[in-house]
């Protein structure tokens, strides 16, 4: 199936819970209401016509006014794929985990939590995965400010050229 016909099938089943279908980009995508995510994903995985058995990628984007979580699904049976997006408020991004549907979501959701601060409700082990456990803030957010030091290690390095200039004066 082509992605657009997949989205059409979703749209006819879930009606207004599918917020938007876009074919303007190279890869068409569907935007879903966050509360409908689990229903839509379960349908995508279990419907024999769709059979999306692989969550090949899951990622997050900070758009300054919202945070999006993007799901790239693939079906090994039918060799087709689709992209789902969920728009979340920036101040409290919470969405249900899809770990129960695809186990590969476990680490990818931990990464999104680590770098963007999205909370995945129902996740079995929501800890930081890349950054140190005592790190503060979410580094891939647009308004992240780098701390001046970490455990006594300064995070900025003076340019040696600037230092030479100062010595001349």
């Amino acid at each position, binding site marked *: 199936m082509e992605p657009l016909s997949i989205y059409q099938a979703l749209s006819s089943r879930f009606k207004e819970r599918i917020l938007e279908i876009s074919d303007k980009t190279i890869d068409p995508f569907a935007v879903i209401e966050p509360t409908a995510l689990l229903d839509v994903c379960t349908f995508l995985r279990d419907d024999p016509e769709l059979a999306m058995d692989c969550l090949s990628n899951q990622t997050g984007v900070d758009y300054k006014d919202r945070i999006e979580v993007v799901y790239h699904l693939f079906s090994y049976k039918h060799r087709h794929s689709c992209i789902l997006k969920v728009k979340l408020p920036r101040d409290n991004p919470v969405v249900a985990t899809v770990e129960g549907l695809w186990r590969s979501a476990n680490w990818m959701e931990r990464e999104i939590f680590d770098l963007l601060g999205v909370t995945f409700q129902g996740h079995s082990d929501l800890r930081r995965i*890349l950054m*140190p456990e005592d790190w503060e803030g979410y580094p891939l957010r647009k308004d992240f400010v780098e701390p001046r030091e970490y*455990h006594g*290690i300064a*995070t*900025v*390095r003076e340019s040696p050229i600037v230092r030479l200039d100062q010595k001349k004066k």
Partner: protein
Amino acid sequence: MSLLNTLPDYVITTKTDELINWMRKSSLWYMLFGLACCAIELMHTGGPRADIERFGATPRASARQSDLMIIAGTLTLKMALRTRLLYDQMPDPKYIISMGSCSNCGGLFQLAYSVCDGVDKVLPVDVYVPGCPPRPEALTEGLLKLQEKIMSERWLARERANPAVA
């Protein structure tokens, strides 16, 4: 000189410092420790073509058996703490070669939020090897420079010869 002249041919005289330093520089066991792409060049340096085993440097899998730590690659802040722990586990005398731009000053990634800009912020570095990554020849040169430095050490001196200040 009169005493020396009376010694038979098979007796060699030297200074304690020189003997100890010569032994130390001739068995610089380095830790098997690679952080990023420089580690590939590090492996190459230990391989048959550059072969730093000629100079007595052989990889050890444990910090407790190593004399030399070659920081090969980008040091992240998370890894910096662990690197310091590994350094503390090494027995004295211990040396550090900072290999490549990333461990020298953060290199290409020094503006990244997660990168420690230079290993000298955490540990005292003996030799900096420039390059991105340095070729095996460059690292071999770095090792030879370190051996030169070791030869200038004094046994009774409390401090090592000019460790770069952290």
